[in-house]
Protein backbone atom coordinates (compact mmCIF):
# COMPACT_ATOMS: atom_id res chain seq x y z
CA UNK A 1 0.00 0.00 0.00
CA UNK A 2 1.46 3.37 -0.92
CA UNK A 3 1.43 6.31 1.47
CA UNK A 4 -1.30 8.28 -0.33
CA UNK A 5 -3.67 5.31 -0.10
CA UNK A 6 -2.84 4.83 3.57
CA UNK A 7 -3.47 8.52 4.32
CA UNK A 8 -6.84 8.55 2.60
CA UNK A 9 -7.77 5.29 4.30
CA UNK A 10 -6.95 6.88 7.68
CA UNK A 11 -9.14 9.88 6.85
CA UNK A 12 -11.97 7.58 5.78
CA UNK A 13 -12.12 5.65 9.05
CA UNK A 14 -15.31 6.10 11.07
CA UNK A 15 -13.23 7.36 14.00
CA UNK A 16 -11.83 10.20 11.87
CA UNK A 17 -15.33 11.05 10.63
CA UNK A 18 -16.70 11.01 14.17
CA UNK A 19 -14.08 13.56 15.30
CA UNK A 20 -14.57 15.75 12.19
CA UNK A 21 -18.35 15.84 12.58
CA UNK A 22 -18.34 16.72 16.27
CA UNK A 23 -18.32 20.30 17.43
CA UNK A 24 -16.32 19.51 20.59
CA UNK A 25 -14.05 16.56 19.91
CA UNK A 26 -11.34 18.36 17.93
CA UNK A 27 -11.07 21.34 20.33
CA UNK A 28 -11.01 18.91 23.27
CA UNK A 29 -8.29 16.81 21.60
CA UNK A 30 -6.28 20.01 21.10
CA UNK A 31 -6.81 20.96 24.75
CA UNK A 32 -5.67 17.59 26.09
CA UNK A 33 -2.74 17.72 23.66
CA UNK A 34 -1.69 21.02 25.29
CA UNK A 35 -2.17 19.58 28.81
CA UNK A 36 -0.04 16.59 27.81
CA UNK A 37 2.75 18.60 26.19
CA UNK A 38 2.78 21.05 29.09
CA UNK A 39 3.47 18.15 31.46
CA UNK A 40 6.04 16.61 29.10
CA UNK A 41 7.96 19.87 28.74
CA UNK A 42 7.41 20.93 32.36
CA UNK A 43 8.78 17.70 33.82
CA UNK A 44 11.64 17.34 31.30
CA UNK A 45 12.69 20.93 32.07
CA UNK A 46 12.95 19.99 35.76
CA UNK A 47 15.43 17.22 34.86
CA UNK A 48 17.33 19.39 32.33
CA UNK A 49 17.74 22.22 34.86
CA UNK A 50 19.07 19.67 37.35
CA UNK A 51 21.64 18.45 34.78
CA UNK A 52 22.66 22.07 34.13
CA UNK A 53 23.08 22.72 37.82
CA UNK A 54 20.52 25.52 37.59
CA UNK A 55 17.95 24.10 40.04
CA UNK A 56 17.37 21.22 42.51
CA UNK A 57 21.16 20.94 42.84
CA UNK A 58 20.86 19.39 46.32
CA UNK A 59 18.88 16.39 45.02
CA UNK A 60 20.65 13.24 43.71
CA UNK A 61 20.10 13.04 39.94
CA UNK A 62 19.17 9.34 39.77
CA UNK A 63 16.58 9.70 42.49
CA UNK A 64 15.02 12.64 40.66
CA UNK A 65 15.02 10.88 37.30
CA UNK A 66 13.27 7.78 38.65
CA UNK A 67 10.88 10.02 40.59
CA UNK A 68 9.81 12.20 37.67
CA UNK A 69 10.42 10.53 34.30
CA UNK A 70 7.59 7.99 34.71
CA UNK A 71 5.17 10.95 34.80
CA UNK A 72 6.87 12.39 31.72
CA UNK A 73 6.22 9.13 29.85
CA UNK A 74 2.59 9.01 30.97
CA UNK A 75 2.10 12.57 29.73
CA UNK A 76 3.89 11.70 26.48
CA UNK A 77 1.42 8.85 25.88
CA UNK A 78 -1.49 11.30 26.35
CA UNK A 79 0.14 13.80 23.97
CA UNK A 80 0.96 11.19 21.31
CA UNK A 81 -2.53 9.68 21.50
CA UNK A 82 -4.36 13.01 21.14
CA UNK A 83 -1.90 14.06 18.43
CA UNK A 84 -2.54 10.85 16.47
CA UNK A 85 -6.30 11.34 16.67
CA UNK A 86 -5.97 14.90 15.35
CA UNK A 87 -3.70 13.63 12.56
CA UNK A 88 -6.34 11.06 11.58
CA UNK A 89 -8.98 13.71 10.79
CA UNK A 90 -6.90 15.32 8.03
CA UNK A 91 -3.99 12.94 7.48
CA UNK A 92 -3.18 13.97 3.88
CA UNK A 93 -2.92 17.67 4.74
CA UNK A 94 -0.81 17.18 7.87
CA UNK A 95 1.50 14.68 6.19
CA UNK A 96 2.51 17.24 3.56
CA UNK A 97 2.70 20.19 5.99
CA UNK A 98 6.21 21.58 6.50
CA UNK A 99 5.77 22.26 10.23
CA UNK A 100 4.25 18.85 10.90
CA UNK A 101 7.28 17.22 9.26
CA UNK A 102 9.63 19.51 11.19
CA UNK A 103 7.90 18.56 14.42
CA UNK A 104 8.22 14.83 13.69
CA UNK A 105 11.92 15.37 12.88
CA UNK A 106 12.32 17.23 16.20
CA UNK A 107 10.71 14.32 18.07
CA UNK A 108 13.25 11.96 16.44
CA UNK A 109 16.06 14.34 17.45
CA UNK A 110 14.74 14.42 21.01
CA UNK A 111 14.77 10.61 21.08
CA UNK A 112 18.34 10.43 19.70
CA UNK A 113 19.46 13.08 22.21
CA UNK A 114 17.86 11.17 25.09
CA UNK A 115 19.30 7.82 23.95
CA UNK A 116 22.80 9.26 23.57
CA UNK A 117 22.55 10.37 27.19
CA UNK A 118 21.08 7.13 28.54
CA UNK A 119 23.70 4.98 26.80
CA UNK A 120 26.68 7.02 28.00
CA UNK A 121 26.42 9.36 31.01
CA UNK A 122 23.20 7.77 32.22
CA UNK A 123 25.13 4.56 32.89
CA UNK A 124 27.79 6.30 34.95
CA UNK A 125 25.31 8.54 36.78
CA UNK A 126 26.33 7.06 40.15
CA UNK A 127 29.69 8.82 39.73
CA UNK A 128 28.28 12.35 39.39
CA UNK A 129 24.87 11.75 40.97
CA UNK A 130 25.43 14.16 43.86
CA UNK A 131 27.46 16.79 41.99
CA UNK A 132 25.74 20.16 41.57
CA UNK A 133 25.77 19.76 37.76
CA UNK A 134 26.31 16.94 35.25
CA UNK A 135 29.61 16.63 33.33
CA UNK A 136 29.87 18.94 30.25
CA UNK A 137 28.36 16.34 27.89
CA UNK A 138 25.33 16.02 30.19
CA UNK A 139 24.89 19.78 30.25
CA UNK A 140 25.06 19.86 26.45
CA UNK A 141 22.33 17.19 26.29
CA UNK A 142 20.19 19.29 28.65
CA UNK A 143 20.57 22.46 26.55
CA UNK A 144 19.75 20.50 23.38
CA UNK A 145 16.75 18.90 25.06
CA UNK A 146 15.31 22.28 26.12
CA UNK A 147 15.94 23.74 22.65
CA UNK A 148 14.39 20.75 20.85
CA UNK A 149 11.22 20.67 22.96
CA UNK A 150 10.66 24.43 22.76
CA UNK A 151 11.12 24.21 18.97
CA UNK A 152 8.61 21.34 18.88
CA UNK A 153 6.06 23.56 20.68
CA UNK A 154 6.63 26.36 18.12
CA UNK A 155 6.35 23.93 15.19
CA UNK A 156 3.19 22.44 16.67
CA UNK A 157 1.49 25.81 16.99
CA UNK A 158 2.51 26.70 13.42
CA UNK A 159 0.80 23.54 12.09
CA UNK A 160 -2.50 25.06 13.16
CA UNK A 161 -1.75 28.27 11.25
CA UNK A 162 -0.63 26.61 8.02
CA UNK A 163 -3.27 23.92 7.54
CA UNK A 164 -6.95 24.23 6.78
CA UNK A 165 -9.27 22.40 9.12
CA UNK A 166 -10.94 19.28 7.76
CA UNK A 167 -14.45 19.94 6.50
CA UNK A 168 -17.40 18.47 8.33
CA UNK A 169 -19.15 15.86 6.25
CA UNK A 170 -22.39 15.77 8.23
CA UNK A 171 -24.64 18.80 7.59
CA UNK A 172 -25.80 19.38 11.19
CA UNK A 173 -23.87 17.89 14.10
CA UNK A 174 -25.99 16.21 16.76
CA UNK A 175 -24.18 18.06 19.54
CA UNK A 176 -24.77 21.60 18.38
CA UNK A 177 -23.64 23.48 21.49
CA UNK A 178 -22.54 23.07 25.10
CA UNK A 179 -25.48 25.19 26.20
CA UNK A 180 -27.98 22.69 24.79
CA UNK A 181 -25.96 19.86 26.28
CA UNK A 182 -26.40 21.33 29.76
CA UNK A 183 -30.13 21.89 29.23
CA UNK A 184 -30.77 18.23 28.43
Amino acid sequence: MDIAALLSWLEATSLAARIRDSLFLFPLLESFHVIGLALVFGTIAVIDLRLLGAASTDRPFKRMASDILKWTWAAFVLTALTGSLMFLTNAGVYYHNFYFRSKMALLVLAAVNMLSFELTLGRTAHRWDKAAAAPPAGRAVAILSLAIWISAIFAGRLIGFTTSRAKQTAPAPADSSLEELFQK
Partner: protein
Amino acid sequence: MKSFAEWLSTTFLSVFIQNHNSWAIPTIQSIHIVGIAIVLGSVFMIDLRLLGLAGMDQTLRQTSNRFGPWLMGALWLMLATGILMVIGEPVRELITFSFWLKMLLVAVGTLIAVIFQRAVRKHEEVVETRRAVKYFAVLTFLIWACIIVLGRLIAYDHVWGSWSPAARS
Protein backbone atom coordinates in the same frame (compact mmCIF):
# COMPACT_ATOMS: atom_id res chain seq x y z
CA MET B 1 -16.69 45.97 25.56
CA LYS B 2 -17.29 45.69 21.82
CA SER B 3 -16.43 49.35 21.25
CA PHE B 4 -13.39 49.02 23.54
CA ALA B 5 -12.20 46.00 21.54
CA GLU B 6 -12.71 47.89 18.29
CA TRP B 7 -10.83 50.91 19.63
CA LEU B 8 -8.01 48.65 20.87
CA SER B 9 -7.69 47.14 17.40
CA THR B 10 -6.90 50.61 15.97
CA THR B 11 -4.00 51.30 18.37
CA PHE B 12 -0.43 51.34 17.07
CA LEU B 13 0.72 48.09 18.72
CA SER B 14 -2.41 46.26 17.61
CA VAL B 15 -1.99 47.40 14.01
CA PHE B 16 1.68 46.37 14.15
CA ILE B 17 0.79 42.84 15.33
CA GLN B 18 -1.99 42.59 12.73
CA ASN B 19 0.40 43.65 9.98
CA HIS B 20 2.92 41.01 11.04
CA ASN B 21 0.38 38.37 12.01
CA SER B 22 2.01 35.63 9.92
CA TRP B 23 4.79 35.33 12.49
CA ALA B 24 3.78 37.58 15.41
CA ILE B 25 0.63 35.75 16.52
CA PRO B 26 2.05 32.18 16.29
CA THR B 27 5.24 33.31 18.08
CA ILE B 28 3.36 34.99 20.94
CA GLN B 29 1.02 31.99 21.25
CA SER B 30 3.97 29.57 21.33
CA ILE B 31 5.69 31.54 24.10
CA HIS B 32 2.33 31.52 25.92
CA ILE B 33 2.27 27.70 25.63
CA VAL B 34 5.85 27.40 26.92
CA GLY B 35 4.65 29.56 29.83
CA ILE B 36 1.67 27.34 30.62
CA ALA B 37 3.98 24.30 30.44
CA ILE B 38 6.14 25.83 33.20
CA VAL B 39 3.03 26.75 35.21
CA LEU B 40 1.35 23.33 34.88
CA GLY B 41 4.67 21.52 35.38
CA SER B 42 5.32 23.44 38.61
CA VAL B 43 1.76 22.95 39.91
CA PHE B 44 2.09 19.25 39.00
CA MET B 45 5.36 18.79 40.93
CA ILE B 46 3.93 20.50 44.03
CA ASP B 47 0.69 18.50 43.78
CA LEU B 48 2.55 15.19 43.39
CA ARG B 49 4.52 16.06 46.54
CA LEU B 50 1.25 16.83 48.41
CA LEU B 51 -0.19 13.50 47.24
CA GLY B 52 2.98 11.65 48.28
CA LEU B 53 3.61 10.48 44.70
CA ALA B 54 6.93 12.22 43.96
CA GLY B 55 9.66 14.31 45.58
CA MET B 56 9.29 12.60 48.96
CA ASP B 57 13.02 13.10 49.63
CA GLN B 58 12.21 16.81 49.90
CA THR B 59 10.20 18.65 52.54
CA LEU B 60 7.06 20.47 51.50
CA ARG B 61 8.81 23.78 52.11
CA GLN B 62 11.76 22.77 49.90
CA THR B 63 9.33 21.70 47.16
CA SER B 64 7.37 24.95 47.39
CA ASN B 65 10.60 27.00 47.38
CA ARG B 66 11.88 25.09 44.35
CA PHE B 67 8.77 25.41 42.16
CA GLY B 68 6.90 28.42 43.56
CA PRO B 69 9.18 31.08 42.00
CA TRP B 70 9.06 29.34 38.59
CA LEU B 71 5.28 29.17 38.81
CA MET B 72 4.99 32.88 39.62
CA GLY B 73 7.64 33.87 37.04
CA ALA B 74 5.87 31.90 34.30
CA LEU B 75 2.57 33.54 35.29
CA TRP B 76 4.15 36.95 34.61
CA LEU B 77 5.35 35.66 31.22
CA MET B 78 1.81 34.46 30.47
CA LEU B 79 0.34 37.81 31.53
CA ALA B 80 2.72 39.65 29.18
CA THR B 81 2.11 37.36 26.17
CA GLY B 82 -1.61 37.20 27.02
CA ILE B 83 -1.89 41.00 26.95
CA LEU B 84 -0.08 41.05 23.57
CA MET B 85 -2.58 38.49 22.23
CA VAL B 86 -5.52 40.62 23.41
CA ILE B 87 -3.97 43.75 21.86
CA GLY B 88 -3.26 41.89 18.61
CA GLU B 89 -6.72 40.33 18.25
CA PRO B 90 -9.05 42.23 20.63
CA VAL B 91 -12.38 41.16 19.16
CA ARG B 92 -11.37 37.49 18.80
CA GLU B 93 -10.31 37.40 22.49
CA LEU B 94 -12.56 39.79 24.41
CA ILE B 95 -15.89 39.08 22.73
CA THR B 96 -15.98 35.47 23.93
CA PHE B 97 -17.45 33.57 26.86
CA SER B 98 -14.36 31.30 27.10
CA PHE B 99 -11.95 34.22 27.66
CA TRP B 100 -13.83 35.69 30.64
CA LEU B 101 -14.45 32.33 32.29
CA LYS B 102 -10.74 31.62 31.81
CA MET B 103 -9.79 34.96 33.44
CA LEU B 104 -12.00 34.11 36.43
CA LEU B 105 -10.24 30.73 36.86
CA VAL B 106 -6.80 32.33 36.38
CA ALA B 107 -7.62 34.77 39.19
CA VAL B 108 -8.74 31.89 41.45
CA GLY B 109 -5.72 29.72 40.53
CA THR B 110 -3.21 32.53 41.08
CA LEU B 111 -4.78 33.54 44.40
CA ILE B 112 -4.63 29.92 45.61
CA ALA B 113 -0.96 29.66 44.54
CA VAL B 114 -0.01 32.84 46.43
CA ILE B 115 -1.90 31.84 49.59
CA PHE B 116 -0.52 28.28 49.45
CA GLN B 117 3.12 29.40 49.19
CA ARG B 118 2.64 31.84 52.06
CA ALA B 119 0.96 29.16 54.19
CA VAL B 120 3.80 26.67 53.56
CA ARG B 121 6.38 29.28 54.57
CA LYS B 122 4.61 30.06 57.84
CA HIS B 123 2.80 26.88 58.90
CA GLU B 124 4.45 24.02 56.99
CA GLU B 125 3.43 21.25 59.45
CA VAL B 126 -0.20 22.37 59.50
CA VAL B 127 -0.46 22.30 55.70
CA GLU B 128 1.28 18.94 55.43
CA THR B 129 -0.79 17.08 58.02
CA ARG B 130 -4.23 18.24 56.90
CA ARG B 131 -6.05 15.43 55.15
CA ALA B 132 -7.88 17.94 52.91
CA VAL B 133 -4.54 18.79 51.33
CA LYS B 134 -4.90 15.78 48.98
CA TYR B 135 -8.21 17.10 47.64
CA PHE B 136 -6.61 20.51 47.38
CA ALA B 137 -3.82 19.04 45.24
CA VAL B 138 -6.28 17.43 42.80
CA LEU B 139 -8.46 20.55 42.71
CA THR B 140 -5.61 22.94 41.89
CA PHE B 141 -4.41 20.68 39.08
CA LEU B 142 -7.95 20.53 37.65
CA ILE B 143 -8.25 24.34 37.79
CA TRP B 144 -5.12 24.77 35.65
CA ALA B 145 -6.22 21.99 33.28
CA CYS B 146 -9.59 23.77 32.82
CA ILE B 147 -7.71 27.03 32.17
CA ILE B 148 -5.88 25.28 29.31
CA VAL B 149 -9.15 23.90 27.87
CA LEU B 150 -10.81 27.34 28.07
CA GLY B 151 -7.77 28.95 26.48
CA ARG B 152 -8.13 26.66 23.49
CA LEU B 153 -11.91 27.20 23.39
CA ILE B 154 -11.43 30.94 22.79
CA ALA B 155 -10.84 29.88 19.17
CA TYR B 156 -14.07 27.82 19.23
CA ASP B 157 -16.36 30.05 21.27
CA HIS B 158 -19.41 28.97 19.24
CA VAL B 159 -19.42 25.69 21.21
CA TRP B 160 -21.10 27.68 24.02
CA GLY B 161 -24.14 28.40 21.86
CA SER B 162 -26.01 31.56 22.85
CA TRP B 163 -23.72 32.02 25.88
CA SER B 164 -21.10 33.18 23.42
CA PRO B 165 -21.36 36.93 22.77
CA ALA B 166 -19.82 36.27 19.34
CA ALA B 167 -22.81 34.08 18.45
CA ARG B 168 -25.32 36.71 19.63
CA SER B 169 -24.00 39.60 17.61
